[in-house]
């Protein structure tokens, strides 16, 4: 089955669960990102490409999701409550799902700080399991 760009954008939107149509394209997410200087595609693009039926391939091929710290400063400072971090996570998840196996071991979770955001823990596992 061939999935076109529009459907893949919709899939990513659903996976991310953040309302990208709220975005006013101010760029505070990219400006705030502590690892933006390491990223090939800046966080604002992840919102933008999903917003206007843009090119999802750019996002899927980007290295940025693997640089992303899941620190949520993009989501925290967004004036509209959009979470680019969630889209980063969705992209990571897309890759992991395509790979077919997820090596996440729940037993390992015990050693983690319970104050850490849930998504950050999960994201860390995904990144290390790639």
């Amino acid at each position, binding site marked *: 089955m061939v999935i076109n760009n529009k459907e893949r954008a919709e899939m990513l939107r659903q996976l991310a669960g953040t309302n990208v149509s*709220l975005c*006013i*394209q*101010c*760029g*505070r*997410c*990219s*400006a*705030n*990102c502590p690892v*933006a*200087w390491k*990223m090939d*595609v*800046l966080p*604002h*693009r992840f919102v933008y490409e999903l917003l206007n039926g843009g090119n999802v391939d750019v996002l899927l091929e980007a290295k940025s999701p693997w640089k992303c710290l899941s620190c949520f*400063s993009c989501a925290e*400072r*967004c*004036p*509209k*409550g959009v979470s680019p971090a969630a889209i980063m996570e969705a992209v990571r998840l897309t890759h992991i799902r395509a790979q077919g196996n997820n090596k996440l071991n729940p037993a390992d979770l015990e050693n983690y700080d319970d104050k850490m955001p849930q998504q950050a823990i999960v994201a860390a596992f995904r990144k290390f399991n790639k």
Partner: protein
Amino acid sequence: MQKIGVFVCWCGSNIAGTVDVAAVVEAVKKIPDVAYAVDYKYMCSEEGQKIIKDAVEEYGLDRIVVCSCSPRMHEATFRKCAESIGINPYMVEIANIREQCSWVLKDVKVATEKAIQLAKAAIAKVRFNNPLHPGQSQVVKRALVIGGGIAGIQTALDIADAGYKVDILEKEPTIGGKMAQIDKTFPTLDCSACILTPKMVDAACHENITIHTYSDLEAVSGYVGNFDVTIRKKARSVKADICSGCGICTEKCPARKTPSEFDEGLRNRGAIYIPFAQAIPKVPVIDREACLKFKTGKCGVCSIVCPNGAIDYTQEDELITEKYGAIVLATGFELIDLENYGNLGYGRSKNVITSMQLERLTNAAGPTEGHLVCPASGKEPKSVVIVSCVGSRDTSGRGKTYCSKVCCMYNAKHAMYIREKYPNVDVTVFYIDVRTPGKGFDEFQRRAVEEYGVHYVRGQVGKIMSDKEGNLTVFASDLNSGRHLMLNPDLVVLACAVKPAKDARKLASMLTASIDTNDFYVEAHPKLRPVESPTAGIFLSGMCQGPKDIPETVSQAGAAAAKVIGLLAKDKLMTNPCTAKCNEQICSGCLTCTNVCPYGAISGVEKEVVTLNGTREKRVVAVVNEALCQGCGACTVACPSASMDLQGFTNKQILAEVDALC
């Protein structure tokens, strides 16, 4: 037998698009006493009103129901129309089938059904309508303007020029407001003080204007044409009539630890101070919280140096009561607090300033006499970053959801005059959108780029860090190139969102003026009555109604003044005839109603009444003063014998509506 005419409006496609108006007409025709029913494209138009008039004549209608938009919109229109053909205006009822029906429903069948029911309810109510006749009340030919900024001054001047007395109430020690703080104004770049101070002087010298500075609104009662207002004139601790305004006291005052409000904290002022040189009145005021005399009892330098003996430490607040016919709210704006924007470093680094602080820094009368310097080092900056939309267009709860409207223009202005005075200083403006609608506005902003070489970067600043030496690092994004930027400017200017003045909400409660969720005053109609509050006799001028620049503020001030003049020019006002009325036959004289009436409109009067069984007896009954009654209806519910009823909203009328809807 009653003859009811029902007129169903299409409102173009606004109603007819969702409601089958012909079906509504057919349905209401079947109701007894409906003598005539018709639909028309625009009932409120002259042609539509003619249809009503012709129908009244042809069918001898005595009651009219119009199924149309909200009564808040056109009830007055249709009442006037009825009056012009000899039907009492209060024999008209409106069924709101636009706002409550066609605009909130999508399904034609459902909407039509609801429209029919709403029409039925209105018909049920109109059966019990009685002709009502408005009384008259006097108009006090004096207006009160709350706020002495450019909006208030302009409104007061316009009213005063028309020959009416006006009082300006200002909470600060001087009039002038925010415009007095500003250096230059866009798009002409002329000096703000040069155009404002003559107006301040005009207001002060005008024979019809009285200025109460350093004063608060203490209490308000009454209604349109007859407001009773109490003003608290706070103690200045200086006798205004003796003081010559020489200012020696302000120079000699030893308590100099209070940041000057007028200079946005960029320098300190004394405990006794005049906000700025052109202040009106030029009379100092003692800030009792900072004054050593008031705090410790040991000082009194000002009273020693005063050549006129004008200092009076024992002065007390004074209460003034005055009657006004109209009140104008011109309470203006302030900048938002930046406590939620810690990432931008405001408060941590002195070199991160607000736009208003920049105005003071570049102002020739400011703390640096107009030399642009970094507040931390006192040195001239080499590069400046201006950040737009700080706290504007922010729905995350940290800032304000609206666009502050003026920032794009003043950012261009700031960038331009920095580049003009200091051509070697690099200026970068970070923006989301540049919004510059207005006469000559876009051209102005383009000049900043084309002629002055200001860098406009589409993107935003994420965080601003300051190291031990006070050097700033700005992390930003450049969206057009997709680059992440790191800049090291010497000065950062934050274009903060504007918000209504702090006391806006308190004043709204005192005046029962409506206010929106952002604390801006609500206008009676967003398009057609933009300078009036929904509360009769209260008018709006300037920023307190929504973000505005100076030209808009001045034109709105003029519009508000015209409305006030229109009101004051009347000798008498028609009062709302929908007042409470007591059925003296069954009133037991318990006077429970007098306790709940917020206007003191009901009193117990001993008089001879005819009882239900026809005998005459002398006893106490409740009597409503129609001039005072505003028609809230609190008494009707409190009355244990149900003798109190509200005309226009009688028990019978409301119950008829309930019955028709259930």
